């Protein structure tokens, strides 16, 4: 997954403040957090010398657009369907303690992660600890994934 530093290296690095932020680094963090858009960096769009950088930046940013509200990205092609994340997710366990809690597949509709057709799918993302402004940086699902099929932006 792309990091703020990698994005920063593709920005003009002039700290021109045209985007409304004090530094290019702050803008890079904004881009990563999906609070800012590339178009807000006017020099990058308008000036010809940044053309190559802009192209690269768009490529680097593209996967972030598939992320959900909580920044969750699932790569179904990598998933084993092992259900480690389903059983480890604290919200899943609280919603369905008699199934998810003891390692079985969930029966409740309130769970966030479940395995369908051999791969993990997400639902009810508003219940995730990473949802909203007061988010907790929980990583139970990503830390328990053996194939790196789940990522957070």
């Amino acid at each position, binding site marked *: 997954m792309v990091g703020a530093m990698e994005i920063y290296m593709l920005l003009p690095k002039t700290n021109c403040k045209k985007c409304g932020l004090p530094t290019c680094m702050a803008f890079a963090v904004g881009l990563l957090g999906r609070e800012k858009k590339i178009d807000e960096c006017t020099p990058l769009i308008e000036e010809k010398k940044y053309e190559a950088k802009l192209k690269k930046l768009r490529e680097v940013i593209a996967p972030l657009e598939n992320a959900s509200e909580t920044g969750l990205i699932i790569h179904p092609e990598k*998933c*084993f*369907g*092992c*259900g*480690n994340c*389903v*059983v*480890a997710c604290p919200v899943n*366990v609280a919603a369905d303690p008699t*199934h998810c*809690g*003891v*390692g*079985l*597949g969930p029966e409740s509709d309130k769970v966030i992660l*479940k*395995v*369908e*057709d*051999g*791969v993990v799918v997400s639902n009810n993302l508003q219940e995730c600890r990473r949802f909203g402004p007061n988010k907790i940086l929980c990583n139970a699902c990503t830390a*328990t994934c*053996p*194939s790196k099929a789940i990522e957070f932006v």
Partner: protein
Amino acid sequence: MATCTGCSLLCEDIEAELSGGKLSKVKNLCRKGHGHFQSAFSERTVPMIDGKEVDLDRAIARAAEILRSAKSPLLFGWSNSTLEAQNVGISLAEKLDATIDDTSSFCQGILMERILSGSIPTCTLDDVRNYADVSIFWGADPSSSHPRHLSRFSYYPRGDKRQKSYEEERTCMVVDVRMSATATLCKDYLFRVPLGGDAEFMEAILSVLEGKIPRLGDKKKMIELGGLLKKTEWGAIFPGLGMVYSLQDNMEVFERLIARLNEITTFKVVPMVGHFNMRGFNELLREKTGYINRVSFKGGVAVHGPEQSVMAAAKTCDAALVVGSDPLSSLPFGTARALARLPLIAIDPRRSLTTDAAEVVIPAAISGLEAGGTAVRMDGVKIKFEPIIKADLPTDEQILSRIMEAI
């Protein structure tokens, strides 16, 4: 709720939705199980004799004829059949004075023999979930081979005595020759051994447990491992094929290690069986003959030994019946070539190298999906299951019974 027969975990919480006779949506099935069930909709076999399509009755009659005229037939496979089919298979072997062997012969057989005879302590996977605080995967990569092992039993679920589970109360260790997918989940406790170095590693653990400094590997890490094993309240070891192949006939070292660990604390062993009912066949044959595999009924007496293994018998028998297995792909070239030259009968739901080479091919229903039955999970728990979809195909049990009647 359906049961998955993709591996020997026999997950019973599968929810399948059907539309038009096919699986439209399946919940809780891992990728391996999903692939196993979806395979039912492609490359299915049809009854064939010498590569020409015939009707089922003729194929069964021809199979019976081949077996009847053979002097020393070999019956092989069995690990992907239900207990009911295995039962008929053993009776068939007795009737034919045949040699019978299953895939455990070159898989976990050597360990399973010790588990079933009681010389290595074992437990059920539910015990592991409820009590285990240390799980050791030795030469096994459950994330690839049994994807739901960690999430259902050995690491992530909460159990009676392990409510805080992997977060605080459970430790997972991996002993392997490489950084496997499972090893990425417990990086701190990955113990890498060189190829074939398992016996030496066991000796090193034994010396650490005696308080000596081990001669092998990272001494600090080994001493830490020794301390951790001593502090374990209830441990479980899951040996995979990696360990069994590495130790071969040197299983005595492992027995010694388990015995020593059990002097200090509780340690149980559950072998990572691959096929869904390999243990079932081993238990059934042991009940009837006292041996778990490699049995010849020649002369009406059950004889066991390496000469009765599929590797040796393939070269000495004069006909072979293969049930739910693909030995031509999985066995060494010499054995595969010997089998391919025989009059071969293959009972299999799907096309494989073995069915391609077989003289007679008999299609069967896929257990778990199209046929019900009973199977034994890797830890010895018997699980009964019903079919998910209706199919007109006969089950392994029905085919074998018909062959037996015709002989």
